[in-house]
């Protein structure tokens, strides 16, 4: 797949073919610069490919975007600092023109992400983990069929990150959305996913496609099992030799 930049076309993903099932949890793993974030943005129609094809439920990404199929969670929470937690969560509905009906939903989502009671707090009053929960609630408010997550927990400390991983699995099970998750942590990918795709350095190719057959629901104890270690070792091997360009 190719997309154009001010400095000419860039081949971000070469020969990457990928089909994702509804309600599936798929992680993209790879060194920085391999095009995993780009792939996510191509799916969400933030970037438009000049070559290659993406279909979301039989539609083009642009049509799917306007039908509000996607929820997107960025690496930084991207909350609007002048809005309260509740107002931030309601932003997608406001833009869609249906904020009035969404209040009850928003409160329910804040309950789901464990932030009930923080409706009136502003982003600067929340910790990094809490801000990311608000961002997840905001992404879920439109009841998206596909949740796209770009290293959402990359900036969090280890303890918060583990906790957020568990929370995310709980939320995923409660909402039944499809999740495409970008990360550069092998254990995180194994713990969360049904399937992990390892992308190589630019132009990104899929180096390994690894189905994770650990039982669900998963709890952190699974990380101490032999199978878990085997999966992360396989990912590590696939990543080895892949150095970050530049």
């Amino acid at each position, binding site marked *: 797949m190719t997309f154009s930049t001010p400095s000419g076309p860039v081949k971000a993903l070469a020969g990457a073919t990928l089909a994702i099932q509804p309600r599936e949890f798929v992680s993209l793993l790879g060194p920085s610069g391999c095009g995993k974030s780009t792939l996510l*943005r191509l799916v*969400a*129609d*933030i970037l438009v490919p000049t070559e290659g094809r993406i279909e979301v439920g039989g539609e083009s990404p642009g049509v799917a*975007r*306007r039908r*509000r199929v*996607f*929820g*997107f969670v*960025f*690496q*930084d929470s*991207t909350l*609007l*600092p*002048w809005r309260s937690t509740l107002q931030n969560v309601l*932003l*997608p509905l*406001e*833009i*869609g023109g249906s904020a009035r009906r969404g209040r009850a939903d928003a409160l329910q989502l804040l309950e789901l992400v464990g932030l009930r009671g923080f409706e009136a707090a*502003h*982003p*600067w009053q929340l910790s990094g983990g809490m801000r990311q929960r608000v961002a997840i609630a905001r992404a879920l408010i439109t009841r998206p069929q596909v949740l796209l997550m770009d290293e959402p927990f990359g900036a969090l400390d280890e303890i918060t990150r583990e906790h957020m991983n568990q929370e995310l699995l709980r939320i995923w099970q409660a909402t039944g959305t499809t999740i495409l998750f970008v990360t550069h942590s092998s254990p995180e990918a194994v713990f969360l996913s049904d399937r992990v795709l390892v992308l190589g350095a630019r132009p990104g190719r899929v180096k390994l496609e690894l189905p994770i057959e650990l039982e669900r629901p998963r709890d952190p104890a699974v990380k101490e099992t032999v199978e878990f270690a085997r999966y992360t070792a396989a990912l590590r091997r696939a990543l080895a030799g892949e150095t970050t360009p530049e």
Partner: protein
Amino acid sequence: MVRRYAMSAAGILAILLAWELYIRVFKVPHYLVPAPSVIGRTLVEEWPTIRRNVGRTLVEAVGGFVLGNGVAVGLAIVFVHSPAMQRVFYPVAVAIRTVPIIAIAPILVLLLGNGYAPKVVIAALISFFPTLVNMVRGLEAVEPSALELMRVLSANRRQIFFKLRLPSSLPFLFSALKIATASCVIGAIVAEWVGADTGLGYLIIVATFEFRTGLLYATTAVGSFLALGFFLAVVILEKAVVRWKPATLPP
């Protein structure tokens, strides 16, 4: 908080006290430099005259403030949405900035007569440029990921402007408006020097030629208080509007 204000007040008081003492000890004649006490007395005695003139300057300064900042904000909005317009008109704005205000004042009096108009225009010109620059920067200082978010949400241009760009530009706008409060008072007074029959600038000229040094100092102090009051009004407005901690602090 109280302590901070007390310390600021103490600094000003100390300077006034030193000034008063110097004048008394060295017996400096009042027509050269009046002591603070003399200025205070003049302020009370001449208050009816000063009051008649201060209203005029206030109207001119506020008029210039509204006009200059209004045009600057409007132009900044146009610039952010149209790079072509920005390329065409930004150099014009810079050119206006480089024209010395004192030099342009007589031209404007010739063009616009002796009334409010040239004063308002000069006060507007002087406060226009900093606001334009800051507002453009503020409107452009949006996180790239916030714009990506708006794209995913399929927001239209109007929504992106009102829900994202405008609120994030407000801290930048207010830091420009605070600069503009003082400069538009200066603009109004300078314009009055060139041709006026009322106003603080006019009073300064009269007091100078008639050697009424006390009145000259008192008028200057009133001009300063005018700018200070204006500044505080904008600060109060800012506190009421910008109640969040901005993610990126303007300079």
